[in-house]
């Protein structure tokens, strides 16, 4: 286990005087799931979606299982531990009663989830009673305190790593709002106090404790009994806590499999404005296509990984060395040089090649950068202009457009951060010309345009945002990977959200069922307007010369082909004596391929006849 001494003993007063410099974020998460396994968790039930009742224990466990399956794809390097308390058996480093840390072989207690871990956890309910057992840990007359023990074990598990680089959390699942309810008098006060102190110690070490309460439908989980103090709820937060906790539980179950990336500066560049005035910018990749993970080649017999090696086979040119090539590409120093500004309308829709890069100012090295950046940002927004600059990236130097983006905050969350987006502009050679005919082409009349506009009003996606769709191909990939890794029997069906339904509406985007007839009508009207009423789909398509010829040849072949008794010829082995032309007649008549040597043709005919 690693421990960062600087961090553990760090004094709070050492905080830098400017927090904007210290904008570090934890890169990974360590989570301990603390699950109450008391008999009460098994006895109380909630109605599930399919009308059957499920126990609270089942809800908690399936929620964790779901969350793990998502996490193994999303946040590969996060580490988890699962720990039950109020158990009959005990298994933990400290050897405390009533706490059982669930784990599988070849895995530390707090570690990255593995396929085996998830798989065995999926079946935990079947073996729970036998392997672990459920039992109230806090009973009057005994000095045992299972909740206290559980917190201690969890804290022990989270000793690993520094809280600077890792976000440490304990997620507590329980349906007991008053864990010490069965105890009376001074003993209760003692237990409450010691447990609180234990929780506080953990929090002092940078571990956050989150409560995920479960309650039967007719009973309310009273946070105020005990847990409010522990997780530090006061005033308004207290009232808001229960609904938000329910939401959190839902969120855990229903997460998109999406690989998470930590916020990382791609590159630091300096933006040269003029007269030697240059400011410091950080670039970030906000939008990049996500691809399925890298492929590792394995030996199919042993499943051991393989590594590639080179085999070079040697077999008056102009030569370029790699250095020369990179020298050629270095047409400018690796900075951003401002050329000037243009109105936004000059940035055409086809001026795009690659995903954009986000730039944000930094005062880390050059004090004053942010101020200049904000001033330019505001001016560009106000005057509707974008900046043109040359970005001398050594690998691919390009002209770029810097488009200012104002911050957009919706429902308390930042939808678009403030800053500028760097859009890579094409060069003249990158833009393909439009080929034009000399004849005039038909245009839509005003009436037709009006009908199209009516259609648009009908099929209007009011709140469309780009992240509404999950990539069906990628989701399918993840699902298949999970099924194979966990040796699940049935392949999961992933719904392709991007497919519109029969009426041509994206079901995800169109929830309002009543507007559908209107849409269908608008489409019909538009169709009538541009196509006329005697629209015949095939009629409008000109059959090409080649396809007409092909069709004629097939018909001809069918006729000719009937002149032979193919079955007889085949039986007598006389196909060999026929010409290729004759053989091709049969193949064409039966819509088979006519390529290949004579033997291939004969064998193809025989296969087709079933001989």
């Amino acid at each position, binding site marked *: 286990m690693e421990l960062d001494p600087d961090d553990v003993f760090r004094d709070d007063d050492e905080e830098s005087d400017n927090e904007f410099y210290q904008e570090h974020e934890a890169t990974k998460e360590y989570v301990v799931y603390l699950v109450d396994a008391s008999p009460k968790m098994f006895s109380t039930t909630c109605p599930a979606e399919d009308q059957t009742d499920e126990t609270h224990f089942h809800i908690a466990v399936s929620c964790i299982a779901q969350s793990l399956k998502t996490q193994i794809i999303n946040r590969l390097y996060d580490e988890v531990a699962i720990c039950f308390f109020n158990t009959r058996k005990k298994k933990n480093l400290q050897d405390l009663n009533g706490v059982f840390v669930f784990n599988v072989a070849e895995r530390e207690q707090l570690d990255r989830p593995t*396929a085996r871990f998830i798989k065995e956890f999926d079946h935990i309910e079947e073996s729970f009673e036998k392997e672990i057992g459920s039992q109230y840990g806090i009973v009057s007359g005994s000095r045992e305190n299972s909740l206290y023990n559980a917190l201690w074990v969890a804290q022990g598990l989270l000793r690993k790593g520094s809280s600077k680089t890792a976000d440490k959390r304990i997620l507590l699942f329980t349906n007991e709002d008053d864990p010490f309810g069965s105890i009376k008098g001074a003993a209760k006060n003692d237990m409450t*106090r*010691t447990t609180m*102190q234990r929780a506080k110690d953990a929090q002092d070490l940078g571990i956050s404790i989150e409560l995920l309460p479960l309650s039967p439908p007719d009973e309310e989980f009273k946070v105020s009994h005990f847990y409010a103090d522990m997780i530090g709820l006061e005033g308004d937060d207290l009232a808001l806590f229960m609904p938000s906790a329910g939401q959190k539980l839902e969120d855990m179950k229903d997460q*998109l499999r999406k690989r998470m990336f930590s916020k990382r500066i791609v590159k630091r560049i300096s933006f040269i404005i003029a007269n030697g*005035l240059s400011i410091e910018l950080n670039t*970030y990749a906000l939008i990049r*296509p996500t691809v399925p993970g890298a*492929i590792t080649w394995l030996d*199919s017999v042993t499943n051991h990984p393989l590594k590639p*090696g*080179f085999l070079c086979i040697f*077999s008056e040119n*102009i030569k370029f060395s790699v250095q020369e090539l990179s*020298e050629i590409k270095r047409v400018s*120093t*690796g900075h951003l*040089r401002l*050329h000037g*500004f*243009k109105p936004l309308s000059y940035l055409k829709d*086809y001026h*795009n090649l690659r*995903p954009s890069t986000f730039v944000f100012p930094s005062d*880390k090295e*050059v*004090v*004053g950068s*942010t101020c200049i950046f904000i*001033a330019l940002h505001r*001016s560009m927004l106000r005057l509707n202009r974008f900046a043109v600059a040359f970005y001398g990236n050594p690998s691919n130097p390009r002209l770029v457009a810097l488009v200012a983006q104002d911050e957009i905050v919706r429902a308390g969350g*930042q939808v678009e951060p403030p800053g500028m987006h760097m859009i890579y502009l*094409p*060069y*003249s050679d*990158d833009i*393909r010309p439009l080929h034009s005919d*000399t004849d*005039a082409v*038909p245009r839509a009349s005003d009436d037709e345009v009006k009908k199209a*506009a009516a259609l648009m*009003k009908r099929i*209007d*996606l009011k*709140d*469309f945002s*780009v*992240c509404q*769709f999950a*990539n*069906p*191909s*990628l989701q*399918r990939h993840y699902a*298949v990977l999970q099924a194979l*890794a966990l040796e699940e029997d049935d392949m999961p069906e992933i719904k392709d959200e991007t497919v519109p339904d029969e009426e*041509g509406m994206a079901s995800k985007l169109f929830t309002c069922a009543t507007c559908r007839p209107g849409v269908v009508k608008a489409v019909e009207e*538009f*169709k009538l307007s541009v196509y006329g009423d005697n629209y015949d789909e095939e009629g409008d*398509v000109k059959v090409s010369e080649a396809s007409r010829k092909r069709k004629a040849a097939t018909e001809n072949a069918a006729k000719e082909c009937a002149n032979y008794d193919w079955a007889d010829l085949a039986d007598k082995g006389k196909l060999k004596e026929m010409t290729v032309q004759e053989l091709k007649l049969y193949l064409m008549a039966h819509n088979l391929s006519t390529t290949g040597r004579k033997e291939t043709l004969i064998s193809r005919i025989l296969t087709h006849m079933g001989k």
Partner: protein
Amino acid sequence: MARTREALLLLLDVSPSMHSVLPDVEKLCSRLIQKKLIYGKNHEVGVILFGTEETENELTKEVGGYEHVKVLQDIKVVDGHLVQSLKHLPQGTCAGDFLDAIVVGVDMLIKKYGETYKGKKHLCLITDALCPLKDPDVGTKEDQVSTIARQMVAFGLRMKNIVVRASLSGEPHMRVIIENDNLLNIFSKKSSAKTLFVDSTTSLRGARKTRDISPVTIFRGDLELSEKMKIKVWVYKKTGEEKFPTLKKYSDKAPSTDKFATHEVKVDYEYKSVEDPSKVVPPEQRIKGYRYGPQVVPISSAEWEAVKFKPEKSVKLLGFTDASNILRHYYMKDVNLFIAEPGNSRATVAVSALARAMKEMNKVAIVRCVWRQGQQSVVVGVLTPNVSEKINIPDSFYFNVLPFAEDVREFQFPSFSKFPVSWQPNEQQQEAADNLVKMLDLAPSGKGEILQPELTPNPALERFYHHLELKSEHQDAAPPPLDDSLKKITEPDPTLLAESQSAIDAFCGQFVIKENPKLKKSTRRFLREKPSGSDEPNGDGSVSDAQAVNSMESKPVVTVDKIGDLTPIQDFEAMMSRRDCPDWVDKAIEDMKNKIFGLLENSNEGINYPKAVELLVALRKGCILEQVYLSVSFFLLWFAFAFWDNSCLNDMSSIVTFSYAS
């Protein structure tokens, strides 16, 4: 194949008014030929100069006239010599008549190819169109142009005219210019000729695509508005990155005496087991593995085939939305163009109606596309209208790929308003910025747009071809510096800077930047004087960063092995966190206990008590971490009694609570 055949005739104006831009014309033309040498070895090229002193063409021999038109090179397959001959164009002394040159060019093409040639035939005219044209013997100039245009259409000749007007310094020939422009316009209208006016040498360099890529559709089929309403469309690529030509790997391993060595390197991969590197695994025994958590899950291609995502080929409309919902920076890739199936008038009208309505209502369409059958992924993208101004170009849509939910990384950034006041620009600063943005205008009204992407060549590629040219002469030639026309792309235009000098000065005067004084010297790199220009390698980069990191790492670490009197807490912490041997923890705790006992015993009237409590708190903190508790609680109880009535009772209570809890 006919498709790969292409004939190009360059008509170059070398009359005196063109002399200033001739170097750039030379470069543009040699680039054109070089690209043909690489990408189209069978293409044929001829060169005609006009405005020359001498006259040398077939027409003048046959019918007379057509003076000052010189055929520099007859139409023939491209070779290296042509590049050389284009490098030093003779400077003409006479006025150039571009109409004469066109006639000679058309005549040459028709004589050589007739009507039967299947390849493309191009004319490329580069002129400034400043010289007055001779009046024809019969009819007007307009008639003559119409006749030539008809001929060009009949023989399928295409023409591109590049008119360079770099410096119109109060020319008196306004009438001539208008007349000539008018004549060129007739060409555009009556034949498939295009005329492009460029106003700088930089634009001239980008004016002619140096490589013609024949457009290939990536999709032909229906744009489905619904099950019942479909529009036949073709989809082309609109932008595609022009890359460096592929270079073959070259090996100098073969002995130079071996005449038959081609020095080409053929790369084959073989896979070896990680455990046993001597064992080579045959390709058919290999299987793909994907990472799942820390493990790798093997998935055979057959398994994949059975379960992978297989969408049907289609382009389906999902809906329309306000253009403001799609921000510009969401565009992910190169751009496609949707046009109605050529010749299908109903589809053309349908596309036109949609495009115009979209433009009018400021809407865009969201579509889901699977271009090919068997493609394993879908793309969701946005169609934006492209309403055409010319009657012979149909309306169309541009298509841009939008990101999926997985592709968007939701990083949070601080609001600008949350920054300290010193980071916010004040009113004067804001005004200076406004002024700068207004003054440094690259698209001034009344003048052409500067650095229009359509007319801007790729400086790195230009430099590559220039270098290639030099290398063909001298094997060891060094990469050439960028010439002035290209420098205008990588660096701001000095004339524009000079024009807006006042705004720049005002801007620079308003803002103060300085190095962050808190940073170590080694990490500073921004304000350091940097060499500018293309020839110097950029001196900054990640090197200094690495140094900074190194200097951090190499900070001497003093190992602590006992708790001293000066900084007992720090010593204790250091010892507790020593990982080289577990005994250090025990030793640290033992030492700390002794220290505290020592303090208490030597305490005079409790003078050392606060100090002792401090140490105690540190000890407790360490013990929590290390989960050592028995000895501490015992120790603490004793300790608590030792000065029960002390003033630091408040501090004590939490410790006692703790001891009891443990």
